[in-house]
């Protein structure tokens, strides 16, 4: 047995640096208790929320309501259930002395901590004592004692983590018991509590119960203030009182009555050197009494991790069979969780008033706020994007091997069937039932002959509308820009604009209807007269965004004959943005960015000002809805389908004011669009400094943002990939106010810079259509001709930094006087782009990039208003390979063991930048 002090010190060493994170969780919990936050928004793991909801077995909204209500009301049967479960808990005695707690997890196997039973030898002279508890008359019941039998089954994971040992550091021991007790009583009289390794048994903020033998006392249950509030990769952090001797006890999620963790230790507060502190603030010593130590909470080992360790352990054949009994429940539940959620109206079963169940704004869409926000694939059905040669023989062969490995339910299909070319390396969508680590599996897929690259198609947070939540990572607390809130509403902020840009030549001495259109003057859009309009030439722009709304500014400007919804909804032919307000929804992004292209000239909206750059030409923008909110894209497949459709329809220009980290799929998409001659205008990115995907790829046009002083917007991404800069800071766009009235505000983002380039492209293509329609300008040459003209005509008199902002500011007047470069002089942007090196590097680092990206953006979107705390996508846990990689990259960083923790947005961002530059440089 390992002494308690060493256990606590080990906990302190290992997790001390994460204290800020734990504190954050603690703070949220307080807010929840004060009624400022709904329960479901404490949880930042979307997948876990979704699975938790599924376990309720009712429609999502009803489940939300029920879970939110659980804090106050519980069905009585929970008591019966707890009472049953409690019978499985035993006290562990060594030489007659109590040393810990354990509980029965299969017919004859108990689990406890490694620090209670380290080895089979330790088990000698030990007994597991059941029913050591008081009856209702406070009289001790007759307890039953069973000897331990390590030779039948023994599996342990050490207290300390050792990178060389698989699944070490989980501090558990599983050991068999003799079938009959010391008095001949059968063990079968005690029902085991089977472990369920699936997620979603509890979400942050829900209560948990610890059933234990503290200090070796008769069985106790903690029933007060016992919420789960934070976590690490392998541990859950929760409140609750425990004492020595509770080690190895069960932690039960009250909402589901499932075991969520194996209790392991208290979590002490520490100083900067990870020294344990007393409540007085002094440094504690091994002699400090327990109750003087300043406990943060308790921590337990996640059952999911223990199940994974059991699964991956190497056992003798006899024990291997027993292992199956330990895993059975996990498999059964995984299947159940895959069943569809019952649809249905809001349940009224819970008498508790929901604290903040997501509101639904009336809309024509059938989307439910929660359902679609979490439309990630449930556990069990994994989706990957792979690249392979598009040849019948190759595909058949890959499919055959996949089916042999993953079973008959494998589907492999072209991700972009409409534009796929036979014999080329194309993107494929791969789907099969799978419950494990998706990132690790993506690496495994590479072993299958014919698969060139593979990545898990998991949700990715989008870099789109961060401009309104200007947060300083270093300070750790966000400040709003005073423009927009995360529910998509905002307020008119012209005072700020005037304050900030009093010296701007676009403002000084100008009437308001002029300076509100400063972006026109900065790009000379106010000076152009078109001989042939884009509409007359049949030139169309597709907008990849959140869809359209009926804001008067943009009403009539969207092409509703060709809109398309690529989300998983009933009617794909309507790209309306229902402006659903719910968890993390920030509607209207497509409206704001779209207004810069097609915003009506005159409306009755108060503070009327700006209008669309193409508004005078009867131009209609085609909305393709690829994301429900600007926060998250559920699957890259949706983006790919949109691009495929845009290509097969024969559209000319795409404007996309949303960004992703570099991924294999987006890289393939950018190249495809380029080959097909589509001018894909992409926002360079906000707040991350590095240019995001798809802007970062050679094939797209990357747009950075400037402000009314012709300087760079501080939040704009920058770098060699940037082609051009356009107004993106303090651009006048339509919004709704908090009381749902239409208004305007000055907003920031490369999101707003991008449509300027799309508009310029449309005008330029129309002006030179006669030349550009010649076959020598087909394919990528068209894109390249535009890029060259854009560069040649850019306005170089500006105060932008000399590097990283492309050729300077867009000057559309000069652009339209710049004819296409002779086709023979045009150079393929992918010359000098080492594609194989790029993909090889991305294959390795993609997972890290995505994880850090999601961490950073999850933090970035965490705003205070509306009670919606940060959302983060799933897939935040690094695969073993990812961990190794991270280890090698950031070896001197504190998080070398459980790297994925958000050690702070700053670290996540820095790490993203490091990984991103490795990936980007690999191609050059």
């Amino acid at each position, binding site marked *: 047995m390992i002494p308690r002090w060493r256990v606590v010190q080990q906990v302190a060493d290992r997790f001390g640096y994460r204290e800020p994170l734990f504190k954050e969780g603690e703070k949220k919990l307080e807010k929840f208790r004060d009624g400022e936050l709904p329960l479901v928004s404490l949880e930042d793991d979307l997948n876990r929320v979704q699975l938790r909801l599924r376990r309720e077995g009712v429609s999502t909204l009803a489940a939300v309501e029920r879970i939110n209500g659980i804090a106050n009301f519980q069905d009585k049967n929970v008591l019966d259930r707890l009472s049953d479960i409690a019978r499985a808990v035993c006290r562990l005695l060594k030489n007659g002395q109590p040393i810990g707690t354990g509980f029965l997890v299969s017919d004859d196997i108990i689990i406890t901590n490694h620090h209670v039973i380290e080895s089979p030898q330790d088990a000698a002279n030990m007994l597991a004592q059941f029913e050591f508890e008081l009856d209702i008359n406070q009289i001790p019941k007759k307890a039953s004692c069973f000897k331990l039998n390590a030779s039948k089954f023994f599996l342990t994971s050490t207290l300390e983590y050792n990178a060389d040992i698989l699944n070490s550091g989980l501090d558990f021991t599983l050991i068999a018991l003799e079938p009959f007790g010391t008095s001949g009583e059968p063990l079968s009289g005690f029902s085991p509590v089977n472990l369920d390794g699936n997620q979603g048994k509890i979400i942050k903020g829900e209560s948990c119960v610890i059933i234990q033998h503290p200090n070796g006392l008769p069985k106790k249950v903690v029933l007060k203030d016992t919420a789960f509030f934070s976590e690490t990769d392998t541990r859950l952090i929760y409140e609750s009182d425990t004492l020595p001797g509770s080690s190895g006890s069960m932690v039960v999620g009250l909402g589901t009555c499932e075991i969520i963790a194996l209790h392991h230790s208290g979590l002490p507060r520490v100083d900067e050197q990870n020294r344990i502190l007393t409540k007085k603030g002094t440094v504690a010593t091994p002699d400090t009494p327990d109750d003087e130590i300043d406990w943060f909470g308790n921590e337990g080992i996640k059952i999911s991790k223990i199940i994974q360790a059991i699964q991956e352990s190497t056992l003798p054949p006899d024990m291997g069979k027993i292992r199956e009994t330990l895993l059975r429940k996990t498999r059964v539940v995984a299947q159940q969780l895959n069943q569809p959620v019952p649809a249905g109206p809001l349940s009224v079963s819970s008498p508790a008033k929901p604290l903040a169940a997501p509101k639904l704004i009336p809309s024509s869409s059938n989307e439910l706020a929660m359902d679609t926000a979490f439309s990630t694939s449930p556990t069990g059905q994994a989706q990957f994007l792979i690249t392979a040669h*598009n040849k019948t023989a190759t595909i058949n062969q890959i499919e055959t091997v996949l089916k042999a490995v993953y079973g008959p339910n494998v589907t492999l299909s072209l991700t972009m*069937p*409409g534009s796929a070319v036979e014999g080329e390396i194309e993107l494929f969508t791969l789907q099969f039932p799978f419950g494990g680590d998706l990132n690790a599996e993506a690496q495994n897929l590479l072993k299958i002959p014919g698969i060139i690259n593979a990545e898990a198609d998991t949700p990715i947070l989008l870099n789109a509308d961060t401009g309104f939540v200007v947060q300083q990572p270093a300070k750790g607390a966000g400040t709003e820009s005073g423009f927009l809130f995360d529910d998509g509403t905002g307020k008119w902020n012209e005072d700020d604009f005037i304050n900030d840009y009093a010296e701007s030549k676009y403002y000084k001495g100008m009437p308001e209807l002029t300076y509100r259109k400063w972006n026109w003057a900065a790009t000379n859009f106010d000076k152009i007269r078109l001989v042939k309009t884009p509409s007359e030439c*049949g030139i169309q722009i597709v907008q990849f965004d959140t869809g359209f709304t009926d804001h008067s500014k943009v009403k009539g400007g969207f092409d509703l004959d060709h809109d398309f919804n690529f989300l998983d909804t009933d009617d794909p032919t309507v790209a309306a943005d229902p402006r659903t307000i719910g968890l993390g929804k920030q509607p209207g992004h497509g409206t704001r960015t779209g207004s810069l292209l097609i915003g009506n000239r005159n409306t009755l909206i108060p503070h009327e000002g700006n209008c669309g750059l193409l508004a005078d030409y009867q131009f209609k923008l085609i909305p393709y809805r690829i994301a429900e909110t600007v926060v998250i894209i559920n699957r890259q497949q949706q983006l790919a389908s949109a691009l495929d459709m845009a290509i097969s329809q*024969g559209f000319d220009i795409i404007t996309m004011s949303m960004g992703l980290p570099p991924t294999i799929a987006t890289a393939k998409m950018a190249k495809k669009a380029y*080959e097909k001659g589509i001018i894909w205008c992409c926002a360079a990115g906000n707040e991350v400094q590095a240019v995001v995907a798809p802007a970062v790829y050679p094939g797209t046009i990357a747009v950075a943002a400037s402000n009314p002083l012709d300087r760079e917007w501080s939040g704009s991404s920058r770098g060699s990939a940037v082609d051009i800069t356009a107004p993106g800071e303090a651009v006048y766009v339509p919004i709704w106010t908090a009381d749902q009235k239409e208004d305007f505000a000055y907003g920031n983002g490369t999101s707003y810079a991008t449509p300027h380039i799309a508009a310029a492209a449309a005008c330029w293509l129309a002006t030179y259509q006669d030349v550009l329609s010649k076959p020598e300008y*087909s*394919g990528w040459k068209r894109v390249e001709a535009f890029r060259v003209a854009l560069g040649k005509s850019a306005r170089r008199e500006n105060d932008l930094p000399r590097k990283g902002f492309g050729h300077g500011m867009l000057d559309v007047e000069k652009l339209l006087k710049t004819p296409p470069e002779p086709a023979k002089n045009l150079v393929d942007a992918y010359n000098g782009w080492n594609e194989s090196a790029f993909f090889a590097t991305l294959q390795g680092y993609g997972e890290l990039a995505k994880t850090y990206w999601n961490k950073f953006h999850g933090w970035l979107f965490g705003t205070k208003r509306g009670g919606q705390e940060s959302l983060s996508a799933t897939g935040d846990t690094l695969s073993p390979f990812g961990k190794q990689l991270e280890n090698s990259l950031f070896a001197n960083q504190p998080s070398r063991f459980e790297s994925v923790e958000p050690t702070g947005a700053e670290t996540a961002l820095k790490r993203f930048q490091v990984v991103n530059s490795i990936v980007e440089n690999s191609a050059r």
Partner: protein
Amino acid sequence: MEKLFDFHFHLLFKHLITVNQAGKKFALNENVRTTGLAQFLNDIFGGPFDSQASPKQVSESSLRLGVIALLSVEHAFANRVLHVFGADLSGVLPLDKDVFDRTKNGLTTYYAEFNKQIDFHLKTAAELSKPPFTIEYLNRSSWAGLTEQQITDKLTLGDKRYFSFSIEGGHNLSDVAIHQKTPSRFPELKLKELQDRADVDFISINLCHLSHIPEQTLGGFAQGLNKTSQLAFSSEDFMPKTGLGLTELGKKVIRQALTHETKPILIDVKHMSVYTRLHYYRFREQLAITNPAVEQLPIMTSHTGFTFYTLDDYLQNKRFRSTPDTENGVPISKVAPENRRIGRTNDIINKGLFGNPWTINLFDEEIVEIMLSKGLIGISLDQRILGASNLAIDSNRDPFFEEEYIARPEWEKMFRDGKLPGATESLFGGIAPSKQERHIMLLCLHLVHAARVGYAGLNWIENTSPWDHLCIGSDFDGLINPINGFDNVIDLNKLQGQLLKYLPQADKFLPFNTDQKALRYKDDGTVDAAFLNQVIDQFLFNNGLRFTVRFLQNWKTG
């Protein structure tokens, strides 16, 4: 019988893509003929390689008016010509390797090849204008200023044969390398080039043809190639898999075709998928709002068959079974329609007759739609399109017909739930022997069906009838398998007699719309012979004549 009109045939196509045994081009007065093994193959595949409407055959026929479809050979045909059961039999056929090789390897563009077709026709025009051919190509510009009567007289009096041109397939407008990565972006400008030409004129264009053109998607096409031919050419491009209605590019082409100031070109809906056809009917109406002249331009199909279903019945009652699947990494959907017994013959063994319910054929609502637009329906003489199967005994069939491929997105829209897509719903507003003899019976059943559907669906004023909108669209020399007894254009001379015999029988046996007869009957129940003769004349020639006159008057009359 004196005169015939054929809405769709190929005059010189085979001369262009074939060579004789000496490797030389066939002379204009020669028929393309297969011998030996090639002849054997020709017979197996139903005779597609031998000439059916060569200039020589035409000169011996009653054909006086018609439309010659021009097209360049698609990649799907050129890619693997006749690799049957793994053996390369392409060398056996009298094919011009150069044409096929440059198409296969992307060394040319469809537009360039199409222009070669035009050039060849124009170059040989002088020779073909002489006897015995006496062929003259029609061009609206040289007929301008003439009255309706003058045009009619000129077309009917004298010995000349007058043929218009059509463009079979939008692929002919692609100016990028065939089947390579680079997409064609300006097909409408190519079409404009053709329309602006003074030396040639086109009456119509098919937006689609038999195969998927990955470098230029204009709209969904319907599977048309039969099983044996698919085996022969073995290209996945023959099976519709992607696409949802008209693409933007397709609309640009249609807009260009219909709104050209002086030489509008009709859209031939043949080969479009059913979803795309519905999309087109709707798009045409929208176009007519901004361009009223479009209203004057009829909807037409040059060589079709019928499904003998209303689309409403077909979809709502799911007269098909279908499943989505993935094939070689591509999401696909196949639809097997119910076999539709459309009539019978007096042949005791082989009594039943079945249509071809594949969606390449027209649904009843479409027949009405075309008549309503004063359009023309050319009935194909391809036995497969009319519903015949190659089996000797074809009287009983499985409940389901052979599967056809439907593009997955279109399948999702119409077939999965069996409903009309929302946007097009408003379109229809809720309407609803010997082997040789069997085939002519099939043709007659088609005519009777169209006439009955037309009578039932529209109000006809005096001296007009559904019979005004039907004509022959043989597709001769279009690699087809003609109905028995009508292997080439010369055999069409027999058509009148056969129609006289079988039309009344078809009107008796067709089990649909039975309260609405297609022919007229006297009080004693006998067929009104005058009316019968009249409708046959209309079908064989007069409808085509009137259509041609309208074309030459640039659709200002009629």
